């Protein structure tokens, strides 16, 4: 039942706060962008990231040509992949500080899920590193990130070529399912090895009276990929 109220404050973080002030200020307040120093920093950041993912792309192509097959290419780009994907954690900071107008929660979610896949799955379970599913998500991420970071670079400089904008919103249709498939297949491939080694798991009895089953946790992660109204696919 709708409540018409002139009172507001709710316990903790309540939504829908009602405010009836006599003569409340109206009109849209213009959103102020980052200052010149922040813009310069962000341009450098985005250029560096674009370059980093280009390095990964080139590395993949060279490795493919050298080997003659597309299997086990992960090893040739392992280090720059880890470096640049982990570096994206800075983007959470950018939102928190306010120089980027995105939600901290949403950005954290997206970056953390990538970092999780790189470190807690691919790096941690050596047996999956030779899986083709790894190549699937690495390619998807590489193309997506090159486009995304150049998009941001150009936007900051107020000169966004239509091609980049088009690429970002169109290629996603292929790249997103590609990435999700690669990620899910990789996690799935890791499961038996996690079970076997008891990786990152602790069982009872122990003096902290705590238990954690990484295998079950990974299954929950896989389930969380199912899109719902509560978290439609992350897209920034």
């Amino acid at each position, binding site marked *: *039942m*709708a*409540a*018409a*109220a*002139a*009172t*507001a*404050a*709710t*316990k*903790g973080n*309540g*939504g*829908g*706060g*009602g*405010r*009836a*002030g*006599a*003569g*409340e*200020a*109206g*009109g*849209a307040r*213009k959103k102020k962008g980052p200052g010149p120093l922040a813009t310069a920093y962000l341009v450098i950041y985005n250029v560096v990231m674009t370059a980093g993912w280009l390095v990964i792309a080139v590395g993949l192509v060279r490795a493919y040509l050298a080997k003659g097959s597309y299997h086990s290419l992960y090893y040739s780009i392992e280090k720059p992949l880890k470096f640049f994907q982990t570096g994206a954690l800075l983007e959470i900071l950018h939102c928190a500080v306010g120089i980027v107008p995105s939600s901290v929660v949403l950005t954290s979610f997206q970056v953390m899920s990538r970092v999780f896949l790189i470190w807690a799955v691919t790096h941690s379970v050596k047996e999956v590193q030779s899986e083709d599913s790894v190549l699937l998500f690495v390619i998807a991420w590489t193309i997506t990130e090159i486009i995304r970071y150049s998009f941001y670079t150009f936007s900051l400089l107020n000169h966004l070529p239509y091609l980049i904008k088009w690429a970002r919103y169109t290629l996603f249709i292929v790249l997103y399912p590609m990435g999700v498939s690669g990620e899910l297949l990789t996690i799935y491939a890791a499961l038996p090895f996690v079970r076997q080694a008891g990786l990152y798991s602790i069982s*009872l*009895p*122990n*003096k*902290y*009276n*705590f*238990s954690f089953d990484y295998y079950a946790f990974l299954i929950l992660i896989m389930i969380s990929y199912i899109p719902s109204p509560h978290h439609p696919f992350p897209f920034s």
Partner: protein
Amino acid sequence: MKHYEVEILDAKTREKLCFLDKVEPHATIAEIKNLFTKTQGKSLKDEDVLQKLPVGTTATLYFRDLGAQISWVTVFLTEYAGPLFIYLLFYFRVPFIYGHKYDFTSSRHTVVHLACICHSFHYIKRLLETLFVHRFSHGTMPLRNIFKNCTYYWGFAAWMAYYINHPLYTPPTYGAQQVKLALAIFVICQLGNFSIHMALRDLRPAGSKTRKIPYPTKNPFTWLFLLVSCPNYTYEVGSWIGFAIMTQCLPVALFSLVGFTQMTIWAKGKHRSYLKEFRDYPPLRMPIIPFLL
């Protein structure tokens, strides 16, 4: 004396922001700015009288639909009854939680029985306080809060209770000494928390919504008011730390940490509004932890 009517518009949107009539001709721009800001943003209370509002003869009230609401009492009762009941399900080892050979068995550790008593006491106390002690300044909160709050309380209760009542539970490393110390902390903090609730209740007469600065009373537990604005939260955190030490259970420690974080946010907010409302607010006081936070 001829009065002026002053209309204030937004420079960019030309929207009418405020209309002040009966402005004295010798009023300065600063005074007009003052009159204007007083009408901004602060939400009105049910008790406010129209005549006393700083508006002209035409008062514009902005109305916003708060959405579906639920009473605070209902939310509190539901969110506290859950943990009380859920913990007991684990304590009595109701079927399908642990292996079938453990159904309805009882733990051989004294501390497990003690923990059940403490946990149950804690929530019974909260339920009784909700019914008989607390005086709420707001009647309702958004409906979705009940789902959020119950998930939090019920979820954590189940998680803690699962381990404490588990057949493979490991009692505290330092044995009876640890349990005794933890129990003392728990009891003292529960008494403290209750004392503060009573003191806050006595500050406010029945049915009123007046706000006053809380001060220490004859009850020594309330002397914490000398050092913090929200000693009820301080004691609450203390109770859970006591319970964590008593059970030596990591999920309890995590629950205490999350609770502490939330209560600190609330305490800081409360502290800030005390400072804003009362000029003579005691400067020594911190929001929740004496001298620190």
